[in-house]
């Protein structure tokens, strides 16, 4: 991999609350190459969305990005920029789309107006010119009759159309990196597929990179080339998508894959991972997954596992990497065919 577009090193975003320090993201490292789509996968509360907000430096107090974290983007250290320089990057070089297209649009302005606003902010475009760009962009994201629809208010559009508007807002400045935080979670399955297809298509045309945040391995399988699995505020496994589906190493990843319904598989009950994500104010000592892990032994309690290579381009944060014989029989690799 050449020079990455985005390189996150040892990102730590803590929330200093009265109930203690919540270490939502705790030592995450991650790199995205130009043109690449990386899936960031994990359960609710594992720190995925905070990671996204951290990249854009939008973490609201009491949250804070701790000293010693590094986010390099296009050769700049984002954490060292002043507010004005950071605003020039948001929506311009890095854009973000959100989970809820219902609430991510301002109800009192037309959608065309909202897309045009981005062009006005970053390109200093005149009202008329920004409107033209907005209509063109709405057309590109597949909104039929874009010049008419641009005059609609968000409540006049369906969820799928609203998500297309969000995408248009994000892409109007042709950013180098798009962060998509659960972009299809709130949508019907058929609309989901359309939106993912659209994202892939737009990515191919523009050559941008995408950081796709999701809890849905199905979405990852369809779109991402590389996957980072997050648990307890850190990356626990990282691999190209085919490799991960074929040879998942970390017990957590295996649990997630086993919990996924699949076509053609015998209709057993879906497997679940016992327990819940521990509170970020009190991560367990040693391995953060050990309480829920079938293979855990005393080393896992004592020692926080480092991320280790378990194959070409495949890394896992698990003591099993050095002691493969200790894997419990319940932790068998799921049989997955990548579609």
């Amino acid at each position, binding site marked *: 991999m050449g020079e990455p577009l985005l390189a996150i090193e040892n990102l730590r975003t803590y929330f200093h609350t009265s109930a203690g320090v919540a270490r939502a993201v705790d030592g995450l490292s991650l790199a995205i190459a130009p043109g690449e789509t990386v899936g960031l996968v994990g359960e609710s509360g594992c720190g995925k969305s905070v990671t996204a907000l951290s990249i854009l430096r939008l973490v609201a107090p009491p949250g804070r990005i701790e000293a010693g974290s590094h986010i390099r983007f296009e050769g700049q250290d984002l954490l060292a920029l002043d507010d004005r320089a950071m605003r020039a990057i948001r929506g311009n070089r890095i854009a973000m789309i959100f989970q809820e297209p*219902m609430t991510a649009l301002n109800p009192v302005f037309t959608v065309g107006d909202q897309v045009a606003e981005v062009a006005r902010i970053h390109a200093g475009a005149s009202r008329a010119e920004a409107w033209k760009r907005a209509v063109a962009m709405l057309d590109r994201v597949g909104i039929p009759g874009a010049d008419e629809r641009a005059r609609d208010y968000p409540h006049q559009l369906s969820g799928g159309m609203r998500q297309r508007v969000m995408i248009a807002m994000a892409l109007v400045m042709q950013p180098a990196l798009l962060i998509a935080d659960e972009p299809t979670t709130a949508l019907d399955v058929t609309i989901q597929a359309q939106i993912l297809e659209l994202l892939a298509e737009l990515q191919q045309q523009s050559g941008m990179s995408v950081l796709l945040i999701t809890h849905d391995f199905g979405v990852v399988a369809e779109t991402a080339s590389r996957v980072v699995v997050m648990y307890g505020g850190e990356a626990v496994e990282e691999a190209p998508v085919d490799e991960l589906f074929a040879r998942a190493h970390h017990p957590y990843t295996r649990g997630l894959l086993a919990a996924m319904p699949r076509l053609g598989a015998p209709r057993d009950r879906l497997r679940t991972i016992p327990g819940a994500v521990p509170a970020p104010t009190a991560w367990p000592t040693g391995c953060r997954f050990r309480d829920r892990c079938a293979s855990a032994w005393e080393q896992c309690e004592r020692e926080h596992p480092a991320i280790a290579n378990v194959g070409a381009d495949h890394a896992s944060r698990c003591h099993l990497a050095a002691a493969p014989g200790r894997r419990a029989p319940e932790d068998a690799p799921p049989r997955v065919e990548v579609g």
Partner: protein
Amino acid sequence: MLTERARAAGRAWARLAPGARLALGVIAVFVLGAVLAPWLTRYQPWQQLDVVRLKSLPPSWAHPFGTDRFSRDVFTRILYGAQLSLSIATLAVLVSSTVGLLYGAMAGYTGGWIDAVMMRFIDAMLSVPRVLMLIAVLALWSPVPVPALVLLIGLTGWFDVARIVRGQAMALRDREFVVAARALGANPARIVWRHVLPNVLSPVIVAGALAVGNVIVLEAGLSFLGIGVHEPMASWGTMFQDAANQFVSTWWAVIFPGIAIVATVLAFNTLGDALRDLLDARQLPGQPAADLPEPAHG
């Protein structure tokens, strides 16, 4: 575009409660009366027609609301009083709404210690009754010019508005479309202007309509105490004060300004309530109302 506006106005009218339509009618009558006053009457409001022969006359064809003890035509004074009372009230409310809107939006959106300080100031101001505050100033400043009166009433009336707006702005700050605007690179001023203010406008409009009623009463009260609008200018409050102690002999000089005050205040309160019902349903930002049509496209 224009026809669309007209149609939207028509729909809003249809959704308005019958009481509110009546209220709008009453307000329209008073506004028209105020604006057309020079054409509706031959007299001037301060004009003493004939202090001997035409004083304290009961209602008649020539003087539909009678004349007062200085032989001034009560009907004329009500019309010109409407000019003064209504414009003082609306302008004062405009002042207080604007100040409250900006102050509240700034406090709520900024948050943190700035918000804390700004809100403690409001708490302090609200702990002094508004009427006392006004009496204290006006007692030392007499006769007060009308523009100054408007400013004084306006600048003592924005604390509640600021509180309402601040609460809404705080809730909006964490709303996804505000976060999205920040993620797209909008600066704080733009976010407050485009994403916060328009979405807190509806409670301010409702509060404003109710406040107009309040200010009409307040102005009448101050004038009644002799520290608001001064003679010979006619406001409904000064007319009331002027005639109150001759109530038994010249009841018409008291009753008609009284009716004017009660009717407008009632109308503005009714209108405010109706606007609340109308705006609450659909203007809670981002929550489409139940009666909106299903999305048609996609």
